[in-house]
């Protein structure tokens, strides 16, 4: 299995040196993106995202809990990712590994830094708070699951309805208030191989990449950054792809709002 990955990586390097990608696509174009919101009835909000053949589901649910002792006037949220074993032959059953933990934290960081979730509104009458769980379920990995997960999380937030708190219990039926995030955040992951940069990697490009940068973007601000992989990036490269990230953010924001 890994020998084939090695071969694919080498084949890809050859192709990219000739100035082409593995598919008929520009280096800074995304594949076709589809977003379906509100797809899981048991969740307060959800979205199923397809980028090319990559498929990721995000679902949001609430529970009641205690606030952090140093922030009694705020609710809490946390993000978790599951690399479901059928999504990729290299995903194993078991507790989250470093990749799924990193993905969850990267998506979480963008949402948290952008401050689009009003956690102050999660405080309940009796001093308890709402706890929001964002679950990122990677169902089919054909590359760039990070951006797909970010998109799915944002899509889920946009359609999330907050349950009512009545007599110490959460009520999920009836007329509910929208979560109404205060802005739209998207993430954009760039890969690098043989000094060529590209966005929205397909699986082979992901496997072959020597380094990655994910920018979390909201309007004209960068809200989060994650670099992974061993390759280094020059300052020029970092700012070149930053400009592209802003452009892509506008495109993806339209898609998120449109559906």
């Amino acid at each position: 299995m890994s020998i084939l990955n090695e071969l694919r990586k080498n084949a890809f390097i050859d192709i990219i040196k000739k100035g082409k990608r593995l598919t008929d696509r520009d280096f800074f174009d995304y594949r076709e993106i589809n977003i379906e919101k509100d797809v899981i009835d048991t969740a307060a909000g959800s979205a199923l995202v397809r980028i090319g053949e990559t498929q990721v589901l995000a679902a949001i649910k609430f529970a009641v809990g205690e606030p952090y002792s140093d922030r009694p006037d705020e609710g809490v949220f946390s993000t978790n990712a599951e690399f479901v074993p059928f999504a990729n032959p290299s995903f194993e059953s078991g507790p989250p590994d470093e990749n799924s933990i990193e993905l969850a934290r990267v998506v979480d960081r963008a949402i948290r830094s952008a401050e689009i979730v009003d956690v102050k509104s999660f405080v309940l009458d009796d001093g308890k708070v709402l706890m929001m769980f964002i679950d990122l379920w990677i169902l089919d990995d054909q590359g760039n699951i990070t951006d797909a997960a970010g998109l799915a999380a944002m899509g889920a937030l946009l359609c999330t309805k907050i349950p009512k708190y009545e007599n110490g219990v959460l009520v999920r039926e009836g007329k509910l208030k929208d979560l109404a995030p205060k802005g739209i955040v998207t993430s954009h992951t760039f890969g690098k191989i043989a000094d060529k940069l590209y966005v929205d990697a397909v699986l082979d490009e992901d496997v072959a990449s020597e380094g990655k940068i994910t920018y979390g973007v909201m309007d004209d601000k960068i809200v989060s950054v994650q670099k992974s992989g061993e390759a280094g990036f020059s300052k020029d490269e970092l700012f070149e792809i930053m400009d592209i990230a802003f452009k892509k953010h506008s495109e993806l924001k339209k898609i998120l709002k449109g559906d």
Partner: protein
Amino acid sequence: MDDTILFPGVELEKTMFGKPYTYSENDKVYSEIFGLLRGDRIVPLQGAYEPIVGDKIIGVVSEERFSSYNIYINTAYDTSLSTKMCRQELFVGDMIEAEVEKIDETKRIYMKYPKKLPHGSVIEVPAVKIPRLIGKQMSMLNLIKEKTGCDVKVGKNGLVWISDCENRYLVVNVINKIVREAHFSGLTSRIEEFLGQKSNEV
């Protein structure tokens, strides 16, 4: 085409006894897969490679051992190529075409007549689609090679070698299309059309 759809557990005529993809119980014969009954043959629509002695296959050297190489051929089984069989030294990552020499009781596959392939790339397709990819008297394969200018070699095990050529990704796209539409009739003309369009664009 008078294909009948079969699924696991469907009863077949007694004449199908002992044929591939059937099993028998209490004197009756049943299909064991989801596939098509075409005349007196069962055509599978998906499935793992089941090696037969004499099969021409494509593999990738995955490990060098003391007097043999382990070859990746996309099966669950171990494979072995003795160094004595090889005219030249092989290295991990080399792509070869070879023939299945024998399969022992532990389902270990032994190969002979290995030939190292020039630098290129390898993709995997379901082994059951390989006959369609080759076509009657190599017609489909020749069509692909002619229209794309690439050299392509197909192994019965589902590995396909593509030469280092300009239109590599077109070859990959057309192979994926054939895999998806393998069981439809008129495939050859559809592929001709597809390749005709694409070579105009290129």
